[in-house]
């Protein structure tokens, strides 16, 4: 074989072979560059192109809100890892943990061999996202901050998980309920509200926070609307000065009776005197998922009790 190669005057067979397959190789290379057929690509909230060769088979979620969406899309069979905080729906407890919220364990994540990791901005630090990408795991980063982003988020996740039709259904339903609510509260008078995320010390949700956007949507006026910081350590004097109609408290810090007792000290507030201090479920209010509509409706009922007497 080697002798025939050194023979001048005869074109060696291997050369012919190589020549013939070159165009095929070029075609193949071109295809790789463009992307294999049936590849799924979306842009995530950190402006990265997130591409999977085919619909995701194994997904790990780093955030409770995203775990909820996966279940909503009917893709729970694809979920192979979640954080300790992912508590909704109840079936999620059957999925193994890969760490605490905001502190995922890299080893455990690799151990469950995901082809996609979905996370919020808080759920994983940029360094963690880098590490995962370098290990060949595709990462989708979500940075939804308002109700306007929920539909887009569900659609993109639906594409990645191969649940496009379910996603479309969920988004349609979400938008329908949202628009109904908007129509309902449109003309109603807006009560003034203070939303205490923490009571000791007093930390209030400002206009720029997600909760602030919920208050606006449900037809209320946040007394901390104009502040530039999303969650601010607030002066009780300002609350007294504004004297809001409603005081809302996240139940993470205090539960029911204890909460009301804590706020009962502030007799100068008319909300306290009239018994308008309400604890709200933190998991419902703070997660940017389609389920937020339930939270929104709860807020709307509190803000405009008169509009709901017919039973919605």
């Amino acid at each position, binding site marked *: 074989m080697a002798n025939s190669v050194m023979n001048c005057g005869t074109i060696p067979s291997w050369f012919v072979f190589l020549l013939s397959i070159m165009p095929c190789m070029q075609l193949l290379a071109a295809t790789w560059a463009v992307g294999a057929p049936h590849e799924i690509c979306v842009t995530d909230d950190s402006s990265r192109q997130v591409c999977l060769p085919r619909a995701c088979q194994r997904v790990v979620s780093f955030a409770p809100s995203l775990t909820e969406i996966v279940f909503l899309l009917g893709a729970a069979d694809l979920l192979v890892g979640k954080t300790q905080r992912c508590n909704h729906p109840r079936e999620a407890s059957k999925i193994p943990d890969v760490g605490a919220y*905001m502190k995922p364990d890299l080893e455990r994540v690799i151990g469950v061999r995901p082809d996609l990791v979905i996370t919020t901005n808080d759920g994983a630090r940029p360094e963690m996202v880098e590490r995962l990408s370098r290990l060949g795991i595709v990462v989708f980063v979500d940075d939804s901050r308002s109700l306007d982003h929920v539909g887009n988020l569900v659609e993109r996740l639906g594409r990645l998980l191969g649940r496009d039709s379910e996603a479309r259904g969920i988004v349609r339903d979400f938008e329908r309920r949202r628009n109904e609510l908007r129509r309902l509260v449109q003309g109603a008078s807006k009560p003034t509200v203070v939303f205490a995320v923490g009571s000791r010390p007093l930390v209030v949700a400002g206009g720029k926070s997600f909760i602030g956007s919920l208050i606006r949507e449900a037809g209320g006026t946040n007394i901390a609307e104009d*502040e530039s910081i999303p969650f601010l*350590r*607030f*002066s*009780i004097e300002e609350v007294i000065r504004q004297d809001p109609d409603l005081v809302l408290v996240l139940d993470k*810090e205090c*539960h029911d009776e*204890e909460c009301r007792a804590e706020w009962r000290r502030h007799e*100068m507030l008319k909300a306290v005197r009239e018994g308008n201090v309400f604890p709200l479920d933190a998991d419902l209010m703070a997660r940017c998922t389609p389920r937020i509509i339930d939270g929104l409706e709860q807020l709307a009922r509190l803000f405009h009790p008169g509009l709901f007497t017919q039973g919605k």
Partner: protein
Amino acid sequence: MNLSALWKTIFVSSGLLFVLIAVGLISLLVGATGFGVKRLLLEGAGSEEGRKAMTIMLSYRLPRMLLAAVAGAGLASAGVVFQGVLRNPLADPYIIGIAGGGSLGAVISIALLGPGRLLGTSLCAFLGSLLAVGLVYGLAAARRSRGYIDTVILAGVIVGAFMNALMLLVISLSGSHEIQRILFWLMGDLSLSDYNKTVFAGLLVVVGWSVVYLNANRLNLLAVGEDSAAYLGLNVARARFFFITVAAAMTGTVVSVSGTVGFVGLVVPHTMRLLFGPDNRVLLPAAFLGGAAFLAACDCVARVVAYPVELPVGVITALTGAPFFLYLLVRR
């Protein structure tokens, strides 16, 4: 000589008392711009606005200002005592691990014991301080052969570091909500004041301070040197134990009601010493009143400067205390 010390004490004390009262009044009247205070002054407590302003001042600002004054007085006085007994200019009330112990107690209460009443946090902080002081004493007693002061300082550093490490461990396992509460507690938080806390802390601080002041002479002797003090007839071991215990109790009380406010216990004693001399008979009243005025003023600033956002008081004490102290150092 006795008489001149007495006159100096009276002179300094009256001056500082005047400052304290001025700070207190300003702190009461300042807040949300105007806020009916003008109405109150002009129309008396009859008008609606006036009554509202009155209630604000009495229910919110007064207990808060009093708590700040009490905390400042306690920290500064304890600082004087520690600096005297340990003869170390870097000694502050937190030097024997009280801050570490108190913080650990508070952090455990916030993170692990769940959303309890605030008294729970204060109590746990106080117990934590007690634990830290107990450990320091235990370590100091175990090393009886070596220098007492070195041992106490070293033990304090070690116990403080250990408690801090435990505290960081608890923090690292906590949720974000607890972390936020813990952070505000660590930076010093006077916004949760009510009369109960103020009276409780006030009593302890005043009693503690009085007891120390009555023994100011002994503190002077200790500050000169342990051997000299012994030759002059002082029971050094008993005096040391007494002073450190009282000062630790005062500090632990303050930490449990206001969190760890830094800088006051270090800078106020030194400032007073630079201004009025090292005689503890003058220094103790000066530190008490000066510390009270300083922290009350800082709390007022923390409340007002970024209204309606409240800044942590510990930030204000450091930002104002440090440049002023540097200025004094340079001047002398």
